């Protein structure tokens, strides 16, 4: 079953408002692919807040754990932040499609909480392509937001890691797109792939730049979702092509959350 109540093995505070919840979920761990997501019920009674929250899969362990990283921004994530190890939580998933690893060089671009799904993806790409072919480009608002994920990017020796903060409190002062443009100058045209997750304006800029560079680009989108199983049809994005139902919209939960950037009407 894709719905299960699972044990929380840890709920680690990574920064003032960012947490990592570690779940004992062997079935989900075995099935998960980078870029997929879980629908998590933040309340016990299912009334307040009513709807599940979609969270990208941050990491999967060989011992059968699935990790999600989340930022406390509303009532649901506030409730989640107070959950302790040993408790249980209801999940549905893994849902959606994932990233497709394809290219000579791989540019993993994460912005803010869009960094969350990149750890799982990085492991997969490193395994398939080898460390010298992997380039991690991360941007965040400030040092604290970026440092929440330092356990992810710090230990990866042999991988090219480039960092930026909007306020200049750490690493490059500027946007992650600056880092991508810089990498574009180094690697030139070629069969390279960009994997991107972050705020919509950032993904739009990365998609545009990737096109200019002649590189492929996959984006992981986030929208408001009620069900995550393609029943509510609420999580739509405008598309440049007709969807499987013949309409002009794609559904993030079913057709995504990962899309080729050319499929999205930016």
């Amino acid at each position: 079953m894709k719905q299960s109540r699972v044990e929380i093995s840890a709920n680690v505070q990574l920064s003032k408002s960012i947490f990592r919840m570690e779940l004992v979920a062997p079935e989900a761990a075995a099935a998960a692919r980078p870029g997929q997501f879980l629908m998590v019920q933040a309340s016990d009674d299912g009334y307040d807040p009513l709807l599940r929250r979609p969270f990208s899969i941050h990491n999967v362990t060989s011992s059968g754990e699935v990790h999600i990283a989340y930022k406390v921004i509303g009532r649901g994530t506030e409730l989640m932040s107070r959950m302790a190890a040993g408790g249980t939580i209801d999940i549905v998933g893994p849902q959606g499609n994932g990233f497709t690893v394809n290219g000579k060089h791989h540019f993993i671009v994460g912005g803010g909480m869009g960094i969350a799904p990149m750890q799982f993806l990085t492991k997969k790409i490193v395994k398939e392509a080898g460390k010298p072919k992997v380039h991690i480009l991360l941007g965040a608002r400030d040092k604290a937001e970026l440092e929440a994920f330092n356990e992810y990017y710090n230990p990866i020796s042999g991988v090219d890691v480039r960092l930026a903060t909007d306020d200049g409190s750490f690493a490059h002062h500027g946007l992650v797109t600056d880092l991508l443009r810089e990498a574009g100058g180094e690697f030139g045209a070629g069969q390279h792939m960009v994997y991107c997750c972050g705020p919509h304006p950032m993904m739009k800029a990365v998609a545009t730049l990737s096109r200019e560079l002649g590189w492929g680009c996959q984006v992981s989108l986030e929208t408001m979702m009620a069900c995550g199983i393609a029943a509510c049809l609420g999580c739509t994005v405008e598309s440049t092509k007709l969807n499987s139902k013949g309409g002009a919209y794609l559904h993030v939960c079913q057709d995504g959350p990962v899309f080729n950037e050319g499929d999205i009407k930016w």
Partner: protein
Amino acid sequence: MTASGTFGYGEEFEEYLPLEKLGAIVVKGISFNPRSGNPPPRIVETACGMLNAIGLENVGVERFIKEKMPYLQKVGNKTIVNILGDSIEEYCAIVERLNDVSGICAIELNISCPNVKKGGVAFGTKASMAAEVTRSVKNVCNFPIIVKLSPNVTDICEMACAVQEAGADAVSLINTLIGMAIDIEKKRPVLANTIGGLSGPAIKPVALRMVWQVSQAVTIPVIGIGGISTWQDAIEFILAGATAIQVGTANFVNPNAAEKIRVGINQYLQDNGIESIADLIGAAHPGR
């Protein structure tokens, strides 16, 4: 039953509950031609509820028959097809196309969707128009007709009586309540459609009251809908006079909600020594 618009065409839920054990699957509303629906954002969460303005996105009747019905026929469940149109002629055309399709046990007329500009709610807010569309469809339909009523009216009993008079075999109520939400940062409505339909536990007391009133005003069966999330909610609706219930938004929250409710109702009957659920229908009414 599962409520239209919250259970897709059934197959979306096959991994989460035994579909064949449901009383019936009421499928996503079908129009004659496919519809793309409204632009995003289409949904927003509210206190114990949600607003939606999906805009009746659906595959249209031809693709429904070709691509969706075979799965429903294979499941072997009772299928109720919810239909919608911009005109009485469109409602009739859909029904005529469905008349010879096996596996359908009833038609539910959606005359109460608040999220489309034409048709929809216009039929559901005037008793004379509701009666007219019901009568017209009844004349051409091989199946029993359930008319789904809007709560966005002055007197829902008047609407129920009108469609009963026009030949409806049952009524289902309620559809969503019209509402809206505003983004205080952007200072704009959240939904691209500005207004949407409110559903979920927040609307349950309103729905229960309307089922209570309508079940005393008509003689045909009343199907209760509106915020039913637990078996206790379902029992309340049956005690209020509902012959059956539909589970809607709860399917989004817990994809196995309908099964949990079905099992819970049976357990309640067993625990209380009640042989038939018919004994409970309207049992909360005075004099029962």
